[in-house]
């Protein structure tokens, strides 16, 4: 294909332009801030046009096309090291770009309605555009350094948007927490980048991936591990996942875009990009898989106990990201990307649906305040909800569709991607590559899949089925159901589009063995074909029968789970059922409800000792020794500066004398 420079410039440049226009005009003119329609349209175009550009590139590309490069400029260079602002258009970056700009467009559209009454409307859209810009840099970069810039950029935007309502202390704390946990991962990632540069002398993906033989086995292990730690920060995996649930403090569209659909998947993107390197180290692959499976089940068990509608979705996101890591660790890089795509559809839909619900619950609270009733309740607590399907049919239907998709019921999107992951994990139990550990991971994944269907339907039933419970729980809210309403068209349009994608999204990755059974050529998995030049997948070696059996088993597990959830939560029994689970699982349930006490653990094991150490030792060291040293230097410098000033007498003949001294100095050096 011809050079993609023009289109790539548009894809990268327009979100930046949108950020600059809305940011600068909003900052400098209060009149501009009130032009919300204009701001909204500009911000939306800044994402939608890049989507169309990405689509154009996509249509001109096929699975055999070689990567096309867009070298915009070199920022600096010296010797062998150069910082290139250069982008790589290939099958993987195109998929990611389409997801980022496509889902991003829908969420921008939705935000117009969602943020309509917020004072910081302009700022919100400026940040959102900046995020898209950074994210596109991340996925399109042709070298690790530019990727890292995008990586830090999305981290910054995530921080800004989590703390968007920064006057609320808990929200700005959540933002700080997200930022700090990410720093831990970023640090590891940075060291990995240094190590790669030291060995290869380049940070360009093409160069790195074609000269992998330059690394020793030891290098591969450590670099892989460090990249993994970087990815666990950004993609919320054990041990660094605790920031993501707190990140839900941000506006809901942010949760949907950044903390579900795009930014948190950048770790998966990175490992897929580096997949030829990862498959060289079975140990790292195993660690990736174990971390993924463990995160998946830990987050899923926590999700069962949550009452906050966004909280459940947050833990569900962590759990699904765990699935993706399990896929990576099982050598199913294509399946991981597949799940990134389908998850972007249904999880964005779920978050936006929850936003629609929160929106209306807040509306109820405002209306009650207008009536002079001083009532306060948590608009995100599902125990206050129930029966909402009557009042918000579109939200309900789309939420239900997305729930079915995530639960793994065929033929919706989540089923195909999750099934492929589970199957690969099982497959890894055989063969020379790995060991029986993977059978255990398969078991964990299956249990997690069961739990996923269960907690998601618990959430859906409790929120939308049964009766509206707020009036029964809180005095003064009688008759408040009349204030419940469906969200505006900008919001429902986005919901329906995402719901539609959640239904059909799975067809890009149909399982090949199904085709073989019916006499086909076994090539119906489009995504697999599409990514085969990039993702270093470990092929499936299972027999057709085994694959059918595994798939049937997965369907049965999901169906049983949905049935149990229906029995337990289908008709207003949330309180009794939760109590029943709590009594059945006793101590386990308490652990889940306390979120495995990880926050407390980190607080006790890391934060407090560090603070104490800083307070008692480092502070003293800093004040007495470091500051003393610095002050001594500064004092010396200032004094010598002041002394040198005395040379500057202001008398011209003294100046001439110095000139003569200078002449002597120069001639001395030259002649001797």
């Amino acid at each position, binding site marked *: 294909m011809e050079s993609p420079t023009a289109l790539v410039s548009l894809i990268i440049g327009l979100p930046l332009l949108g950020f600059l226009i809305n940011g600068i005009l909003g900052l400098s003119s209060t009149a501009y801030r009130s032009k919300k329609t204009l701001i909204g349209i500009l911000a939306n175009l800044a994402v939608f046009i890049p989507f169309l550009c990405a689509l154009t590139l996509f249509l001109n590309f096929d699975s055999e096309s070689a990567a096309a490069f867009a070298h915009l400029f070199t920022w600096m260079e010296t010797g062998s090291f150069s910082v290139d602002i250069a982008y790589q258009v290939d099958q993987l970056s195109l998929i990611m770009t389409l997801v980022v700009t496509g889902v991003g467009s829908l969420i921008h559209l939705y935000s117009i309605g969602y943020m309509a009454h917020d004072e910081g409307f302009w700022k919100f859209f400026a940040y959102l555009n900046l995020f898209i810009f950074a994210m596109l840099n991340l996925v399109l970069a042709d070298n690790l350094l530019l990727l890292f810039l995008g990586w830090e950029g999305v981290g910054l935007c995530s921080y800004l948007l989590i703390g968007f309502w920064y006057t609320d202390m808990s929200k700005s704390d959540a933002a700080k927490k997200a930022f700090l946990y990410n720093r831990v991962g970023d640090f590891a990632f940075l060291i990995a980048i240094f190590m790669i540069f030291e060995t290869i002398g380049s940070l360009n993906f093409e160069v790195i991936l074609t000269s992998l033989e330059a690394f020793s086995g030891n290098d591969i292990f450590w670099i892989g591990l460090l990249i993994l730690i970087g990815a666990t920060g950004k993609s919320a995996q054990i041990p660094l996942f605790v920031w993501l649930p707190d990140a839900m403090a941000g506006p809901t569209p942010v949760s949907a875009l950044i903390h579900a659909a795009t930014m948190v998947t950048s770790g998966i993107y990175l490992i897929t990009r580096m997949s030829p390197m990862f498959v060289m180290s079975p140990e790292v692959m195993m660690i990736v898989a174990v971390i993924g499976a463990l995160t998946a089940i830990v987050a899923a068990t926590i999700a069962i106990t949550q009452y906050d509608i966004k909280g459940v979705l947050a833990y569900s996101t962590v759990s699904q990201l765990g699935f993706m890591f399990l896929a990576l660790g099982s050598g199913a890089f294509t399946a991981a990307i597949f799940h990134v795509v389908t998850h972007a559809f249904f999880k964005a839909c779920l978050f936006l649906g929850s936003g629609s619900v929160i929106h209306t619950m807040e509306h109820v609270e405002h209306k009650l305040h207008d009536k002079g009733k001083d009532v306060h309740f948590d608009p995100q607590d599902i125990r206050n909800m129930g029966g909402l399907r009557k009042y918000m049919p579109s939200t309900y239907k789309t939420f239900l569709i997305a729930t079915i998709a995530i639960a793994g019921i065929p033929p919706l999107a989540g089923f195909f991607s999750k099934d492929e992951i589970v199957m690969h994990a099982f497959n890894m139990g055989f063969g020379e590559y790995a060991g029986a550990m993977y059978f255990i991971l398969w078991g964990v994944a299956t249990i997690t899949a069961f739990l996923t269907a269960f907690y998601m339907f618990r959430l859906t039933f409790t929120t939308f089925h049964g009766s509206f419970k707020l009036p029964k729980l809180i005095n003064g809210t009688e008759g408040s159901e009349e204030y419940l309403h469906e969200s505006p068209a900008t919001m429902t349009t986005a919901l329906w589009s995402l719901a539609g994608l959640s239904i059909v999204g799975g067809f890009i990755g149909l399982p090949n063995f199904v085709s073989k059974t019916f006499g086909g050529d076994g090539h119906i998995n489009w995504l697999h074909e599409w990514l085969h030049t990039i993702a270093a997948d470990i092929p499936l070696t299972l027999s057709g029968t085994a694959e059918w059996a595994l798939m049937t088993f997965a369907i049965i597990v999901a169906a049983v789970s949905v049935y149990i959830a229906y029995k337990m939560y289908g008709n207003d029994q949330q309180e009794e059922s939760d109590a029943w689970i709590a009594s059945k699982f006793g101590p386990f349930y308490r652990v889940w409800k306390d979120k495995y006490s990880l926050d407390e653990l980190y607080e006790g094991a890391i934060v407090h000792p560090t603070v104490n150490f800083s307070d008692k030792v480092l502070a003293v060291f800093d004040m007495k020794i470091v500051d003393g040293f610095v002050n001594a230097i500064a004092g010396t*410098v200032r004094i010598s500066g002041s002394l040198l000033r005395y040379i*500057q007498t202001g008398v011209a003949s003294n100046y001439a004398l110095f000139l003569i001294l200078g002449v002597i100095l120069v001639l001395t*050096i*030259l002649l001797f």
Partner: protein
Amino acid sequence: MNYLLDLQSFLPGIIVAVAGLAAIMLEAFKKSANTSFSVTIGGIAVALLFAIQSLYGEAGTAFSGMIVYGGVGAFGSVVVLLGALFCVTISREYLRDLDLHNGEVYGMILFSTTGMLGLAVSNDLITLFISLETMSICLYVLAGLMKNEKIGAESALKYFLLGAFSTGFLLYGIALIYGATAATNLTEIAAAAQPTFLFLCGTGLLFVGLFFKVAAVPFHMWTPDVYQGTPTTITAFMATAAKSATFVAFVLVLTRMLPSSEIGDWQSVLQVVAILTMIVGNLIALAQDNVKRMLAYSSIAHAGYLMVGLAAGNEAGYAGVLYYLFAYTIMNAGAFGVIAYYERNHGLDFTEIDSYAGLGFKVPVMGVMLSVFLFSLAGIPPMVGFIGKYYVFAAAVQAGLIPLAIIGVLASAASVYYYLRVMVYLYFKEAHKEYSLKTPGFLFKWTLILLAVLTVYYGVEPVLPTSSLMELISSYYTV
């Protein structure tokens, strides 16, 4: 035919000289400084266009080898003309407030610019000397513009006395070189040069003359007094255009007259002077409480960084110096411009750092721009100043002068203190009393905005020495 070609190769200088005559005549007959101002702007702009055109043309020598055209010379001419243009556009308002706005000022600026253009293209020691003097004599006059102020008269007199003194050395050096080689043409000297006592003394004295003009330590003593006593926008002109022209001449001397390092250890001279200049310039700047004087010392320090590029003595070093001159012209003209703006509101003593307290919030756009320029001068990315420093220091590392580069980086780190100190006053101190600032005029304000934009733009997307600038140097070598 040949004459025409020769004239054409020095067209920018001729245009500027004619504009200078026109500016003075117009003042005499029309009594309208504004007309002179327009002629000045127009003349410099047209000259700039021709200079840019010759930048992309071929390189060669003209006037029987007295000057070079194209290549380095063209680049130097562009930088000089840019410096002159920016200083003139910000001068009008400022000089009006000082009651110094008249046509002769522009005439002097233009004649001085003619000298600088000659300096930037000189291929012969005679051209170099005459151009240097043309430039300097006009600068002496400009330094004495505020003749009714004690500080102004003092500044002009000191500049003149010491300038004359250093010119003596320069001329003596040229005479000795001629004695040793029987040539004044740079390339002919290179061909005939032997490391004799005579030749080395000559070169050393020539260097002294150039060191004086670029304010290298210990030949810098005149700088703070002169910079402080000169109207601020003219100071900007001296610090940018005059310094750039002299550095370009320095590059020409080094590359054409001393291409072989076997003749004399001039690299060590440059190293020692670079180290002295960076350390002394920065140290004294640290102790200054007057912003204008601080910028004077900072300009000494910058001459030190530039000297690092010269000391490197490789293509990357010369390219780095040229890029640095461009960067320095943009950011320094901007910084002096904002200071001139603050100053003209409240009289000449308004350059003490105390009076800057809380000023950043008064006219926000000015405060922000001053911050941009100071950040750039301090060498903080993504400003153009960072890129400039990066290139000269990288060149020094490439040439194996690692201690020199380390001293440079440390000196540059120390300089952050005094630049940021201004910003601390701008934004973190309470204003002493209530007052309001005049609104800046259209041309003044937009010139500064343009400079600020360029400062950031070339920091984000710099001209790489490996690309066009490097080609310039090599195209020049093939002459």
